[in-house]
């Protein structure tokens, strides 16, 4: 019986090691990516934010109705021209796939800033710096300055555009912010 007990101890250790090795501690759920691949091996993907449903935070001075209710935005002159927002972002199927931050700021000591960080938990993050001046057609263009994990090997452009809802439906959002990415794989050093 003692030999059986010792065998049980060894079996228990092996089972614990195998369990921790083969059963993933974290399994991030990934929605199917809605990517369009182009002949130049680049790809485009569209995300959007339904406003106001997907807006988590608007951090800006002098707000009559802060979002979320109870938000205590710092009363400091430094932030007088700063607007920080948090959103949920959706894919082309209108499914939430990530979260995003948008910071817009102008300051006498520095240039106008409009930036996005798109964070898709199962895929990675993209840091996007936009050109402050909108292009013709009402959209704004920017570049992916840095990408992590799935976005690390990519480079390209990102556009943002406000599209007002014209459906007239009662439960429709007021509009949506459309974010379109156009990425291509970075050229590797030839040597």
């Amino acid at each position, binding site marked *: 019986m003692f030999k059986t007990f010792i065998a049980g*101890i060894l079996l228990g250790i092996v089972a614990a090691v195998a369990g*921790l090795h083969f059963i993933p*501690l974290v399994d*991030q759920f990934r929605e199917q990516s809605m990517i369009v691949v182009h002949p130049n091996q680049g790809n485009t993907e569209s995300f959007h934010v339904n406003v106001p449903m997907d807006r988590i935070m608007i951090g800006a001075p002098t707000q009559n109705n802060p979002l*979320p209710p109870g938000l205590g935005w710092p009363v400091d002159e430094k932030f007088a021209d700063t607007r920080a927002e948090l959103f949920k972002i959706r894919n082309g199927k209108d499914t939430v796939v990530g979260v995003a931050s948008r910071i817009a700021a102008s300051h006498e000591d520095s240039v106008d800033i409009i930036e996005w960080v798109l964070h898709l938990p199962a895929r990675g993050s993209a840091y996007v710096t936009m050109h402050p001046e909108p292009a013709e057609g009402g959209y704004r263009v920017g570049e992916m300055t840095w990408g992590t994990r799935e976005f690390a090997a990519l480079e390209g452009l990102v556009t943002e555009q406000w599209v007002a809802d014209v459906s007239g439906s009662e439960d429709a959002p007021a509009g949506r912010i459309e974010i379109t990415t156009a990425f291509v794989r970075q050229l590797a050093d030839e040597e």
Partner: protein
Amino acid sequence: MKYLIALIVGMATGAAAFAMLLYYNPLVAQNKLSPLSVTDNELISLNYSAVAADSLVYTNDGNSQITPHPAKVLQLWERPIRKTNAMATVLKDSRNQTVGIGIKFSSDSESSNILNGEVIVDSVWHIYLPGRGSLFVEQQENFWGYLREIVIPAYWSSGDSWRGIWNGNTTSGPGAIGTATVIGGSGAFRGVRTEAVEALAAKAYSVDRGPVAISGEITIEVPRPEPEATPGP
């Protein structure tokens, strides 16, 4: 029958012994010394409170131990973002002066491996320092030391809490020496690529509420401008 009982008790003992070995494994030690402590370059220190109630906004799936703040903030309950939390906070310098706003997204990482003492969180910071510019910080954080020395002892404690002094770096990558990657986006930081380390200083933790008195610090190395090349004689 008695052999079967001996086998089951033996397996439970083996699994428990292995769990204790993992927990007390001296080879998996928390890195308490910052890799940036030996640099000659300027360091920017950005401090924040890691207590959700002290942040501007903190949100998660709504079922986690830490309660979202403020109470009516939108929660991240959808399946693809359920293992993610988002925080917006005021950043202060080493003199406790407000210098900027930081937004942090943290997601549980699939690269976590308890066998190696790795409880990994993929996190990114979006930082804006008025008058200076903006930064993006990419990092993997290892919370095994935090779990082992604060969270688990809090659960074992009869008071369901932990009190003490604990300091540790949470940043474990992607830099080879355990540093985060920092990318400058605008202003004085435009085009800058450098490194950072995030550390936590904990004093109190509660099983019911999570962090009670814990502060965070992001230390960013600012590289010196390269001297202009001068023509040879």
